[in-house]
């Protein structure tokens, strides 16, 4: 995979990132806005995600039904998603049809309608989306753990928002959110695929450069104070299965500890995107039948978020015993330096995952814009090198610093009628 890309700032402050790939007649275009659930206060939780939904309800030029049909008709794939830190929209199209996607994004950056009728109909759609999540014990548990882990920082609420807010948010609040954040100087356009950079850039300028710059919206900054002790919570619900989440505060994407932590996670829970049946936690918990499954992971975020270990408890074990085995395994990485060979293994695994990702044009356009949301494209291109520089001492230091009981929340889903502890 080549790392050569073109990066340009338009006069109105919009950032453009272009990467030519000529292996298939496909172009993937992503537009990113620096707004996510972290930019919402109490009473307005879910605004960013709901705004994302409203972006599919049409403009004068592209009314709702025209809009989705236009993309599908050309054989395009499109979607959008909202995260803690950003909102992104993508279209992957046959190369000769990409102009439609660009016109659409330029238009809905400023002209979405947000009619009362559409807001009303989308309210029940989003409530239904949330009800679907609530059917899952893991969602209920994650939500409770996140709320316990953050009291001050807006990472405390789920991206979809609280039900009370979904019932109450008004059309004007949504529209205001849209106008505040959907401006060119708060956006990044990342495009990869089968195009000529010069011609593509000319077209982007024609479509986007006349959109007026707005007042750059400040991010909501409410740092979470240090956690002062372990928190534990229980959720009850239907079923026979006991789920456990152990969540530690995790460094931000640009913190020096981020990469050692990635290596630590590869050793403990397995490399992301691969099976993990030889990870330390799998061997300690699943091979020994304390758990029927274990996995772990973190999100890459602007501010410190969570490193979570997910456990499905073995029906024949008490949760306390399972947690004691987990703690013993964590203590090992805090006490004993990991061999260098384990770090090389983590690096090789990451190299393979990167190679799989580069088969796919959509994925390459994604990473350009995504890395820009919390750092820069250099963060992505330097990833494997930074991982390779991690030392056994780094891993031990990070394990000692972050994997402290006082820095964690333990959440347990107790199936109704089953004694858990």
């Amino acid at each position, binding site marked *: *995979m080549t790392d050569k890309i073109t990066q340009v700032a338009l006069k109105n402050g919009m950032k453009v990132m272009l990467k030519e790939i*000529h*292996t*298939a*007649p*496909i172009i993937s275009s992503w537009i990113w806005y620096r707004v996510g659930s972290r930019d919402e206060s109490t009473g307005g939780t879910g605004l960013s995600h709901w705004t994302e939904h409203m972006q*599919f309800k049409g403009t004068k030029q592209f009314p709702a*039904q025209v809009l*989705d*049909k236009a993309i*599908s008709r*050309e*054989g*395009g*794939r499109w979607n959008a998603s909202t995260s803690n830190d950003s909102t992104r929209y993508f279209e*992957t199209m*046959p190369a*000769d049809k990409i102009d439609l996607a660009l016109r659409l994004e330029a238009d809905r950056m400023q002209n979405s309608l947000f009619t009362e009728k559409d807001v*009303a*109909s*989308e309210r029940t*759609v989003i409530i*239904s*989306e949330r*009800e*679907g999540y*609530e*059917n899952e*014990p893991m969602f209920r548990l994650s939500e409770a753990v996140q709320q316990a882990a953050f009291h001050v920082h807006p990472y405390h609420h789920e991206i979809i928002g609280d039900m009370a807010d979904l019932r109450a948010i008004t059309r004007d609040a949504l529209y205001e959110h849209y106008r505040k954040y959907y401006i060119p100087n708060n956006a990044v356009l990342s495009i990869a695929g*089968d195009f000529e950079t010069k011609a593509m850039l000319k077209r982007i300028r024609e479509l986007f450069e006349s959109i007026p710059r707005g007042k750059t919206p400040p991010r909501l900054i409410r740092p979470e104070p240090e956690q002062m002790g372990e928190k534990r919570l229980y959720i009850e619900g*239907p*079923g026979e*299965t006991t789920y456990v989440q152990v969540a530690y505060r995790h460094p931000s994407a640009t913190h020096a500890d981020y990469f050692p932590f990635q290596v630590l996670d590869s050793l403990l829970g397995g*490399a992301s995107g*691969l*099976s*993990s*049946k*030889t990870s330390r936690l799998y061997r300690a918990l*699943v091979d020994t*039948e304390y758990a*029927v499954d274990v996995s772990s992971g973190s999100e890459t975020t602007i501010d410190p978020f969570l490193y979570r270990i997910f456990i*499905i408890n073995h*029906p*024949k074990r008490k949760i306390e015993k399972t947690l004691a085995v987990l703690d013993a395994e964590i203590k090992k990485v805090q006490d004993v330096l990991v061999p260098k060979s384990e770090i090389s*293994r983590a690096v*090789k*695994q*990451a*190299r*393979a*995952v990167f*190679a*799989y990702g*580069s*088969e*796919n*044009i*959509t994925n390459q356009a994604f990473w350009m814009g995504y890395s820009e949301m919390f750092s820069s494209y250099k963060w992505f291109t330097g990833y494997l090198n930074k991982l390779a520089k991690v030392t056994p001492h780094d891993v031990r230091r990070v394990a000692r610093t972050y994997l402290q009981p006082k820095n964690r929340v333990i959440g347990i889903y107790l199936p*109704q009628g089953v004694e858990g502890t």
Partner: protein
Amino acid sequence: MTNAKMSLPGPENVHRAVLPNGITVLARSNFQSPSVNVGGYLPAGAVFESDEKLGLADFVATSLMRGTRTHSFDALYNELESVGASLGFYSGVHTTSFGGRSLVEDLPLLLKLLSESLRMPTFPKDEIEKLRAQWLTGLAIRAQDTSGMASMAFDRMLFDGHPYSRPTDGFVETVESITRRDMADFHRRHFGPKGLVIAIVGAIDPKKVVGAVERALGGWQVPGQADAPMLPPVKPIKKTVRHHHALAGKSQSNLVIGMFGPRRNDPEYFSASLGNSILGQFGMMGRIGEVVREKSGLAYYAYSSLNSGTGPGSWEVHAGVNPKNLKKAIALIEKELHRFIKHGVTKDELADSQSSFIGQLPLSLESNGGVAGAILNIERYQLGYDYYHRYERLVREVTRDDVLETARKYIAPDRLVISTAGP
């Protein structure tokens, strides 16, 4: 601009070879990334298992990597995971499938472990028992899944008395009854080179890769490998049947409404596919999405799907709705099905979906896994290696009358299977 036709799999760029022991090898180069994808199947599916041992085929498939004559479970996965490779097996009704990927430098390792898992599994007792406990937890989780339970009851009602009515992951009592001997017997009878197809796509030389497969699997001989039993006919649905699976404590109910659909090789497959696109896929989930989600705001998702394979297919509408809106959603879907068979589709609707099918082809073939899946499909259903070159014509020649005729053949709104799960 890159030529669209050149990038499609075809006889000029897919290399096909049949080894002396009957294994079919398909290979295609893609040097975009230093990675390789391996996929394939063999005829060892759930169709061979008895009602008392439901789940056996999938249990066997999942156990293949739990220990072989030369590797323990941990040692086998250690070799794979240490190089960032992956490999897995699972069983469907007709076949056991496998899939894996690695950096191209590790393809020999991947093929070695694939061969070992297929040919020499030992089904170690302690590993089988661990897997069984995990399996039973999986079934307990399934029992709480409104979507999974609605689908399972749907299959039971639609395919009453047919092997397709049975869940391939079995039931608690059938999974508990499966012995190590059952597994070893199943493996001995049904695993072999006859009918095995393997596709390899990535940074490889197709001809050389055939040699590599031959070295790994060419020596495999299994005399007397059983042939698949004939499928019984399905029983027609004579009037609408309904079932509600009650699950307390859930916020959402799931529904599946449907009927039979064509086989993959039936002549009306393309008209059914295009009809299904218009009914519940195109744009924001087609007409169904339009009425249930966009106009009524009843659901986050509501779509239709066509499942066409070796045997009789199914045509299904799925939605997740608030329990109090269940009846309303069912009524809206029934109304759409009525409209669909009464008036058919418009010229514009058909043209839109045809254009969409043709345009999305290169997108579905973006990754090595996508290409491997596509050429395995060609082989499985004998579509011909020029299939993707003929594809545009096959799509374009479907007429509005074809769609209507096919819809009327399969959809009868007074003979539906309606399955729901929730509070």
